[in-house]
């Protein structure tokens, strides 16, 4: 399997603060890769570096193409879709328009052409599909600021999907969702990935990350401290000490998983299969 995203030696500093050092990470075709780590470890900074929002040193390749020098919008057009931990929606556009902005691809010529000739009518099928996938149809005409936090996050995911990315970078998409909403999201993400869109997932919900990812990287103080399958990472003593904590790790594998599974299999999946 070929690598969709591969970084080597990515480092980021903010003045004296070294937020990332020498991170090598790879996301392959068909993979859902998790990135976890304590608060302030540099996960968001890593996504920012890959998408071009902070200056970074090191090599960043998207399908073997070096993208490290490109501005953010060029990287987005090459197929990097992302969501934000801080949500960052277009606050004065409705949910549907938020998606439409991402779904469209206008060039200077097409943009001006439309303005003169009025060719475009704003119907974007991808955007509608993304709405359906995340169950946001009810909220499509509402303004983002009227939605509860968790749903705003989902709008962010839908917007990233609407842009037809070739790699999805998700920053805490499940924050603000309750455990079975989060499990439901996980299931949908898994389907998206299985349908051919690789993704990198950052989240603190361990039943989500360890439950659905194929491979997990662990950051601490800007450095990778572990990598492996969810099972390997869960049992890594260093990761337990720095991040998982004793009981969470156990619970993630047993109790919590079991209870959320129960919640999901009964009512949740029914809703999604409809």
């Amino acid at each position, binding site marked *: 399997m070929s690598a969709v995203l591969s970084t080597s030696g990515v480092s980021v500093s903010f003045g004296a603060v070294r937020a990332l050092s020498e991170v090598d990470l790879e996301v392959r075709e068909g993979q859902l890769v998790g990135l976890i780590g304590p608060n302030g470890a540099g996960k968001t900074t890593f996504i920012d570096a890959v998408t071009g929002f902070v200056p970074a040193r090191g090599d960043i390749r998207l399908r073997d193409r070096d993208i490290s020098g490109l501005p953010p919008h060029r990287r987005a057009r090459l197929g990097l879709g992302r969501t934000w931990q801080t949500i960052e929606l277009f606050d004065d556009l409705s949910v549907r328009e938020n998606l439409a902005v991402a779904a469209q691809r*206008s060039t*200077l010529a097409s943009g001006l052409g439309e303005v003169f000739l009025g060719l475009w009518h704003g119907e974007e099928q991808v955007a509608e599909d993304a709405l359906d996938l995340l169950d946001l149809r009810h909220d499509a005409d509402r303004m983002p600021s009227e939605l509860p936090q968790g749903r705003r996050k989902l709008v962010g995911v839908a917007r990233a999907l609407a842009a037809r990315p070739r790699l999805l970078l998700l920053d805490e998409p499940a924050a603000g969702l309750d455990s079975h909403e989060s499990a439901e999201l996980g299931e949908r993400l898994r389907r998206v990935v299985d349908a051919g869109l690789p993704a990198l997932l950052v989240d603190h919900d361990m039943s989500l990350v360890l439950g659905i990812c194929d491979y997990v990287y662990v950051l601490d103080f800007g450095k990778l401290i572990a990598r492996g399958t969810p099972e390997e990472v869960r049992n890594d003593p260093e990761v337990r000490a720095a991040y998982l904590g004793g009981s969470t790790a156990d619970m993630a594998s047993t109790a919590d998983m079991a209870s959320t599974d129960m919640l999901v299999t009964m009512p949740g999946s029914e809703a999604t299969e409809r």
Partner: protein
Amino acid sequence: MVLSPIVAFALIGLGSGGLIAGIGLGVVLSYRGGGVINLSAGVLAMLSGFCYWALDTGYFGITFPTGWAITLTIVFALVVGVVFEFGVVRPLRGQPPLAKLTATLGFFVSAQAAVVLGFGEEARPQPPILPSGIVSILGYTVPVSSFWIAGIVLAVTLLFVGAFRWSRFGLGTRAAAENEAYATLYGLSPNGLSLANTLLMSLAMGLVGLLGASIAEVDSSTLPLMIVPALAAATFGSLNSFTVTYIAGMLIGMAESVLIFFSSQSWFPTNGIGNPLPGVQELMIFVVLVVAMFFRAGKIPGRGDIVERRLPPAPRPRAPLKAAMKWVPLCAFLMWALPFGFREGLITSLIAAVSLLSLVVITGFVGQLSIVQLALAGVAGFTVSHFFINFGIGFPWAAIIGVLLATVVGLISGFPALRVRGVSLVVLTLAAAVAIENFGFTNSTWGASVTGSLVPAPSLFGFNFGPNASFHGIDGAEPSPLFGWFCLVVLTVIALWVCNLRRSRLGQEMLAVRANERAAAASGVNVRNVKLIGFAIAAAIAGVSGVLLAYSYGSITADSYDTLVAISLIAFIYICGITTVPGAIQGGLIYTGGLLAYAILDWFGLQGNWLNLLVGFLVIASLVLRPEGGATYLFYRSKRPASEVTS
């Protein structure tokens, strides 16, 4: 030896530098306290100046001793502060910066008109408060009061620095200015903090008013207009630092004074007819401002950058063609049927609406607060005039070249906006407008002398359709309805086109940039191009309005494209709805000299300062009642925007 006059002139400039710095402090206080770009800081100072003059000279019948007059003036300044707080600042808390700026402009206009009505236009020699002696330095005489002013304002600056750095009041103010709802959760009282800041500001402005008297006379425009350099000074300090504002204000004052000396020297560039080149100082301020601000901000806002409150929503136009079919014939008929005064008003309204559409595009859609638009109109207008005078080129080529030139200048003026955002951009474009006006338009080689520069009537294939065309309205008088119809066609085309723009992908990208630059970039939007295209489009529209304006006057002067007029354009469009096409058209109708203004003059005989007094008041009232703008309210009565607690 060469240096000594420079030093002396610089020292003389300490006085006006102190006043600029003082007003700059007021600007900073208003901004820190309530996010208000306070255009009326200078007006507040002027009010106190007049109060002191009236009390001290017995204008109201009682003459007070100086000590008493000063005390009462301070009290008066505080009272004005309270009025300002409850009339302007508090009702508009939580509104976008542009709403607040517009309201302070309303206050500016009303207060200035009131002063002229009460005291007349002429300058009042004020009994000086400060020691009036002179000292001799390097053989030049320098008034002692300059040093006093510089010193007193410095003391006030240090006081503010201390108050904000070491007291909880300063911290609380910063917190409340960033997010009021959150501040209340900490037990802070945004109302109290805001009042305290406004009072502090008006106290400082009272002091400036008193001091101003010592170096100049009080009149209704000197101190109010010092707001322009004061804003520049405050912007050097990011509208945030008292110290930087003080230093910048002093330097501007001193540089001004030194330039006066330079311009009397033989090597100083002249404008061709022997007078020193005008506007060098304004150009200098602009350039330094651009350089200072450009390198301060990033291309795309970074993590944790505080985002300013957004503009009103920009709804999609509904059935614009249908609306056009209804209104255009009516307007065409009125153009022919109305008596000449009303016809003239209608034409003014149509032209104003075109220039307001340029603001709808750049501010309403792209979210860039720009004051430079009218100056761009001027670029086009003067081009039309000079192409005729110098090369004998008339319509349509001169008009086309004028619009193209305006577009180019507009595009250039858009470059700073790639990094400079929000209210800083207001100040930057204001500085640009002032520079273009003073450097370009008042220079009689490129612009016009006070008597004006001739503009030929537009004609195509020998067919004249200018205001002086032979076809007359029903009353048989000029201006010709032909010209009115021409303006109407131009406005209709542009208005429909802007509606189309809003609905196009490009329009949607503009709104995305307006809402969130980072997210727009992450969605593949080329933020830089969208901004630049927006500036170019807006400049072209402004250029068209400038050409029309030039044709309608037949002769133009720098006053036609004056910066104060430019700011008032913003006020008119904002209260009508800066995000919609109907807003621009309504704005045109109520615009100074437009149809409604003429009607008021004709029916009620209200004009000049009485009209200004009323307009200023109405601007504020309209903002308080309909902060999203009248047209937006009338045509798109949608849900109120969600409360600010969530954002």
